[in-house]
């Protein structure tokens, strides 16, 4: 079955406004339409790239819409792999780096100087690296905060520790227990959390695994048995079930529980800070450090990761593509993405240039957590399977109360089936 064949678009100078004779043509796909704030940032970044490298490179951006359930952009990439016609540079979600690299859809970037590497947050470099080679650089980073309602904790007389001394699971469970009667009175729950379908579950809750000394996959990404279903992970799963069982969280999600002052804690993305500031000024917001395992010894564990730029394997101009990737993920673009779309940037300099990360304690806390303790999601070509398996296990153990070990073993089986493709030869 070979429908494959290079169908790469031939673009000649003059075909596109701005593409002049003597320039090298670089096509780039982004996963957002031009109309969105994010899309506009990319458009601006590409424009400034073309200005900067006028006469040398010309980058031509295409916007490909993506819907909530992941359709659209990824369908298009998948189909283009088959039909040929991938661009020189494309965006991809952080956890997919391994799969794309393993399957030869993207190629390693040209070497970066130490200085260039040093600009990026460690989590970004980590996310973009597979098999010791750097494939992708993101312009955005993300983080999840353990938000708390200052007024409620004060009322309960609970002190919040600093980033280097987070609550352990046991401590946190005690706090929840303490909050329970108070929150019952408010017709709420100690913590506003859910195990949502999709990517969010692994994103929010895998840190509990890492901070417990556990892991989901082996370092090379090719083994899960003994990792995914390790005893440590069983502990974590059971921990979540306890929270549910004790009714510290609502079994079914309730809209705006935290925002309306009926929950003391909430796990949510960094954007939540902005949302609360803008829409719920009554909530006195604080950011606590992510909860750790009882034996935590300071290793990285907090959620990170976002879409990144990579050079497709179809590009024969890896130098140019790398330039474009660097530019798109660079400081200037990072500042822009914050200003326009309120996404966290990916470089230290960018954070430095944005006042709010110095002045606002909550943003500052998030930045600190990210830069010090950020941990990328598992790097394995079967990531999608790992992610869904995690979510499903969490759901059936946490909510369903099933036996954690059995569930995790089942997951391992399912993931192994997918891994077979890579481990065959």
């Amino acid at each position, binding site marked *: *079955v*070979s*429908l*494959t064949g290079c169908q790469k678009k031939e673009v000649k100078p003059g075909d596109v406004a701005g593409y002049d004779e003597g320039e090298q043509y670089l096509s780039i796909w982004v996963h957002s339409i031009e109309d969105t704030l994010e899309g506009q940032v990319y458009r601006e970044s590409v424009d400034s790239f073309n200005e900067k490298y006028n006469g040398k490179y010309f980058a031509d951006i295409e916007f490909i819409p993506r819907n*909530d*359930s*992941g*359709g659209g952009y*990824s*369908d298009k990439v*998948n*189909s283009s*792999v*088959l039909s040929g016609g991938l661009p020189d540079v494309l965006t991809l979600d952080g956890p997919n780096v391994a*799969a*794309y690299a393993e*399957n*030869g*859809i993207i190629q390693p970037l040209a070497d970066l100087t130490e200085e260039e590497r040093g600009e990026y947050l460690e989590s970004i470099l980590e996310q973009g690296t597979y098999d010791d080679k750097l494939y992708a650089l993101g312009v955005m980073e993300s983080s999840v905060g353990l938000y708390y309602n200052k007024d409620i904790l004060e009322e309960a007389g609970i002190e919040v520790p600093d980033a280097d001394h987070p609550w352990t699971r046991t401590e946190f469970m005690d706090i929840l227990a303490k909050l329970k009667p108070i929150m019952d009175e408010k017709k709420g729950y100690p913590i506003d959390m859910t195990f*949502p*379908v*999709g990517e969010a579950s692994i994103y929010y809750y895998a840190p509990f695994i890492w901070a417990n000394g556990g892991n989901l996959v082996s370092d090379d990404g090719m083994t899960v048995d003994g990792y995914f279903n390790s005893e440590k992970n069983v502990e974590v799963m059971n921990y979540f079930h306890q929270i549910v069982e004790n009714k510290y969280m*609502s*079994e*079914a*999600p*309730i*809209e705006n529980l935290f925002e309306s002052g009926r929950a003391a804690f909430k796990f949510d993305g960094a954007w939540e800070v902005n949302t609360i500031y803008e829409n719920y000024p009554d909530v006195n917001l604080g950011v606590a450090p992510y909860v750790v395992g009882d034996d935590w010894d300071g290793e990285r564990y907090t959620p990170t990761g976002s879409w990144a730029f990579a050079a497709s394997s179809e590009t024969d101009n890896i130098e140019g593509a790398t330039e474009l990737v660097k530019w798109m993920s660079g400081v200037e673009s990072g500042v822009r993405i914050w200003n326009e779309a309120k996404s966290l940037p990916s470089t230290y300099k960018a954070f430095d240039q944005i006042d709010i990360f110095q002045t606002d304690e909550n943003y500052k806390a998030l930045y600190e957590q990210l830069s010090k303790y950020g941990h990328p999601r598992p790097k394995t070509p079967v990531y*999608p*399977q790992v992610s*869904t398996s995690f979510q*499903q296990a969490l*759901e*059936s153990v946490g*909510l*369903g109360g099933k036996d954690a070990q059995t569930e995790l073993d089942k997951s391992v089986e*399912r993931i192994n*089936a*997918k891994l077979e*493709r890579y481990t065959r030869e």
Partner: protein
Amino acid sequence: MKKKESILGMAFFGPALVLLTLFLFLPMVLTLVFSFTDYFALNPDMTHFVGLENYINIFKDELFVKSFFNTVKFVIIIVPCQCIGALVLALAINKVTHCKKYFKVAFFIPVVMSLAVVSTLWMDIYSPEGILNTLLAHFGISAQPFIHSAKQALPSIAIMSVWQGVGYQMIIFLGGLQNINPALYEAAEMDHASGWQKFKDITLPELKPLCVFVFITVTIGAFRMLVQPMVMTGGGPDHSTYTLVYDIYETGTMNWEMGLASTMAIVFTIFVVILTIIQNVLTKGKEEKKHVNKKAKNI
């Protein structure tokens, strides 16, 4: 003369045939071919022929089997509810003398709204503190988890789906009802038929061909259930709302396992085709039997 007609026929059918070939037959054939391979979307060059392996695997796959039964459950709930609901609505609207036009539009409105939009709205309805639970609280019923519980999620989605689609079938039935010769009812009135007898002896038999049509479209629709669970529950909780088409979609698009997804699609299609045929044979068979009886009596 005959030859001319053949040419004319092909000329008329031609454009559709070309497009059908390109966009339906070819994809189906490709799907069939893929189903015997381990075609992986991210790495098409590495495709191997694997024989029946995929077919064996999917039937060993618990999730596939589960999604299969979920789908059947959806069909079992949706088909009778939607068919009967549509019929009842149509009968009522046909009968009612006030605001007929308004009703025709009102019940159809969910049909014209996109599934994604409707699903989002219903998530609010079903939410623990949503309208429905608020309403239940008025009757002293404790809050129900609905789409957040493995037990209730599937029926909840099925009900929403019926709600959304029933207007379409209602319109079909309404058309059928308006086609029934009113003189038949007058004749039945002369023949001292009660309201129920009129329904049983005139309305139902007259609507029968339409019922078959509606039944098939609703069944196929229910089999193709995807967007509602995707938006509302993501197939959960505990895969209780994970459907066949959802599985196909995830396997193919999210997990890039095109070979496997193709196998599922083929199995799915075969299953529905068989069902349709059985259903056709059943209804036809009945008629033929009657025919035979009639002949026997005539002799």
